[in-house]
């Protein structure tokens, strides 16, 4: 019996080794280390400080292409990403035209022919509704929406490749809605939850509602996002499931609002988020609250252009789709329990990053499964030797 066991366990061991190596390769060695050089400037070529809001321009220069990240709080806060196939492209701002918000052309990317793809995300409205029965169904009980284009925005605060801007409105009393944009030069993962995986082709926006005085004790919030896609609008939301929740405990899904290429399988640009929002600024597992989204729908392109200076300045003809992200489920605590809500979203061009296992998980599984197999092998060999040795000496017959 022992030799058969050894043979079988040999085969199993080989299969396991092969599996392990292919596992490692596909998850660890797949991505190439790609870096961009970041050049940050605020209000480029402006003679005076523009009233109402700043314009942030980050040039992320790669080997043979450039990504221009533009973030502006003139009107509704907008993030615009332009992908050009030349490493020497630049952004020209005609400040009087830009600030007048009447005609397009105030912001140009030169040379125009090098533009491959552009995507913009506008945070247009914050909606509040009274969830009297704790059903978390945003059907009724809406208070007048807060138009983010009417907020009073602070000056942009720079922290390296990250920028922070906060807005207030009189209804908030002491509270504010803040946005923090981070641009990255290499692959990595954010430090704080939900620890989204980012690449040099993406930027991360954190939105948080801090200290807002709500209109009702049982208020819940919805955030309206609009995406401007030019020729290829963001038309559908893909929900991907994955088994590893190591970096965002208890979240196994990621939602991606993508603009599919003609053909359907490739993705040109994306807005990616995990369906979780946090009720504390340094959250623990129990501070997580789920969030849902509505289906993307077409929006009025003129209204969007009127609300955001950046959209008006850059886009001449564009398609706008929008969706609502609602925070909270039935039974979850309301905003008033902590007066804080934060949500993170990743905006980028190309295909969205895919989460991988961490080495710890792989190591533990390999060690845990490998040792018994090795023991089986060793034990089988030992038993074989033992039997052979026993067989060599004269066998004593048992008496009864």
């Amino acid at each position, binding site marked *: 019996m022992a030799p058969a066991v050894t043979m079988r366990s040999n085969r199993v061991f080989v299969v396991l080794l092969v599996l392990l190596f292919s596992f490692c390769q596909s998850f660890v060695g797949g991505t190439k280390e790609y870096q961009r050089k970041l050049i940050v400037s605020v209000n480029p070529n402006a003679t005076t400080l523009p009233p109402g809001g700043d314009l942030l321009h980050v040039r992320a220069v790669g080997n043979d292409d450039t990504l221009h990240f533009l973030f502006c709080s003139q009107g509704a806060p907008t993030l615009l990403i332009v992908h050009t196939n030349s490493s020497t492209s630049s952004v020209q701002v005609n400040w009087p035209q830009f600030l007048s918000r009447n005609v397009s052309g105030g912001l140009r990317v030169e040379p125009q022919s090098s533009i491959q793809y552009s995507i913009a995300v506008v945070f247009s409205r914050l909606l509040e509704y009274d969830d009297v029965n704790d059903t978390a169904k945003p059907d009724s009980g809406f208070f007048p929406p807060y138009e983010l284009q009417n907020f009073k925005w602070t000056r942009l605060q720079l922290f390296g490749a990250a920028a922070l801007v906060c807005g207030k409105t009189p209804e908030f009393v002491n509270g504010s809605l803040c946005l923090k944009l981070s641009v990255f030069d290499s692959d990595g993962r954010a430090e704080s939850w939900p620890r989204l995986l980012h690449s040099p082709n993406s930027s991360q926006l954190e939105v948080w509602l801090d200290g807002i005085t709500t209109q009702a004790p049982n208020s819940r919030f919805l955030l309206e996002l609009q995406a401007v896609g030019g020729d290829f609008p963001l038309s559908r939301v893909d929900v991907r499931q994955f*088994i590893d*929740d190591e970096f*965002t405990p208890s979240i*196994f899904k990621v939602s991606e609002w993508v603009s599919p290429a003609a053909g359907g399988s490739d993705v040109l640009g994306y807005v990616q988020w995990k369906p979780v929002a946090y009720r504390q600024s340094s959250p623990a597992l*129990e501070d997580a609250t789920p969030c849902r989204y509505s289906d993307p729908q077409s929006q009025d392109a003129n209204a969007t252009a009127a609300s955001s200076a950046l959209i008006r300045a850059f886009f001449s003809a564009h398609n706008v789709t929008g969706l609502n992200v609602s925070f909270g489920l039935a039974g979850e605590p309301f905003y008033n329990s902590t007066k804080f809500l934060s949500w993170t979203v990743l905006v980028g061009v190309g295909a969205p990053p895919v989460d991988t296992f961490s080495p710890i998980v792989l190591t*533990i599984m390999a060690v*845990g499964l490998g040792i018994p197999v090795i*023991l089986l092998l060793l*034990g089988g060999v030992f038993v074989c030797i033992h039997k052979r040795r026993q067989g060599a000496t004269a066998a004593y017959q048992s008496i009864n």
Partner: protein
Amino acid sequence: MADFEEQQNLLEEDDESSSGERGSASGADRQMSAICDPSRALHRVVVLTFMCFLGFGSYFCYDNPAALQTQVIQDLNLNTAKFMQLYAWYSWPNVVLCFFGGFLLDRVFGIRLGTIIFSLFVCVGQVIFAAGAWLDLFWLMEVGRFVFGIGGESLAVAQNTYAVNWFKGKELNLVFGLQLSMARLGSTVNMNIMGWVYNKVAAAVGSPGYYTLGASLMIAAVTCVFSLICALVLGFLDKRAERILHKEQGKTGEVIKLTDVKDFPLTLWLIFIICVGYYVAIFPFIGLGQVFFIEKFNFSPAEARAVNSIVYIISAPASPVLGFMVDKTGRNVVWVITAVVATLAAHVMLAFTFWNPWIAMSLLGVSYSLLACALWPMVAFVVPEHQLGTAYGFMQSIQNLGLALIAMAAGAILDSRGYLVLEVFFCACICIALIAVVMLYFVDYVKGGDLNQSAAARAKVQKEATSDAEAKRRPSKQTQGDLARLAPMSAFSLRNRYLSRLGAQLPDHCSTHLSSLAYRSVLK
């Protein structure tokens, strides 16, 4: 052997008393109906009912935190690590109490008073737990779980001792099976009902909160009161039976000598490792299971509770069937390997795939029952009879120690790293058990393969033992009475001791407390 002779005396007294009753006043027969006559089967069925419900309250309330996990965490503002403390505090007293349970029941309290006292602990513990929730005092809830733990495990020992005392021979297996099923029924009912109870109370009170939680737990304490009533009734019936039948109070028969630990063979230590490594991947997992199924597999809370309880539902019918199978085929080590590998497969399925968790949890339920039926009797095969109490006490003690520590570790891991790392951690624990059982297989093989004998081989050895026992019994009768303890050991008893070391199964009437101990922890 002293036990055998004692049993002989009891049987003779039984005959005497029943014949005496028949012979003397025939009015005695007319006064007691079948249901009131302790020597008749119908009365024993009544006693069996009370015995089964004795443990119901304790098993119902043990898993209350798991059934109400979301509510406990939300209403009291806990994190998962603190939530798992509720399970850790249940296990801490049993690290020490496992050694003293038998002693307390035999020498200090007696079985009747002991059962009532432990039931009282269970009841009071659950009430303190509920009061802690009512007043939003987490430390009070931990105290309640501690008191509950003092009573819980020892109550299982008492329940077993009652069973052994009232039912002998072939009936005993059926009784243990029924007790196990009732225990599992309690756990299952708890999992599926407590959520509904909480919602009803929340509707009545107006809003969820720690008041609602405290009230729901108080309602759960009613089952403990019910068990306490059963304990009182059982005590009364047992005392009455003792008076009518002139039989002694049951004893667990355990003798604990801690110095025996140095004599434990390597195989026994490997069995301990298997026990700890396996159970720490089952009970803390069920404790945290509900939210896992809600988050990962998008189950509704009611569905998640149902799939969490499937392990208990399956183990209720599966344990007697699998126990029968293991008894018939022997080869315990192979069955333990099967059970451990199946559990590892189930955890890997839950961790790395999105397959329907009903499959994995059903597999977990079957393998859990199989391991319980195959592992605990192995202790009786490697340890001589007089050390059996110590061995089982040790096994339960380190099992509880492992459960307490790993429960806290599991909560901390979940808070910081999420469910995948937690599942990988559980897989690692099972792998430790797998390593131990593979080593056990080889160590046992080299030593002659006693643990892994087929049932036929074991029966053959046992037959030889009894035929020798029959031949030697007559001369030993002359040394009855007090002198029997002072006389040197006869060849008969020497041979029995040797055979018990080999693992020959002695017939039930030779050692009643042996069968009691063998099934004692199938309830876990």
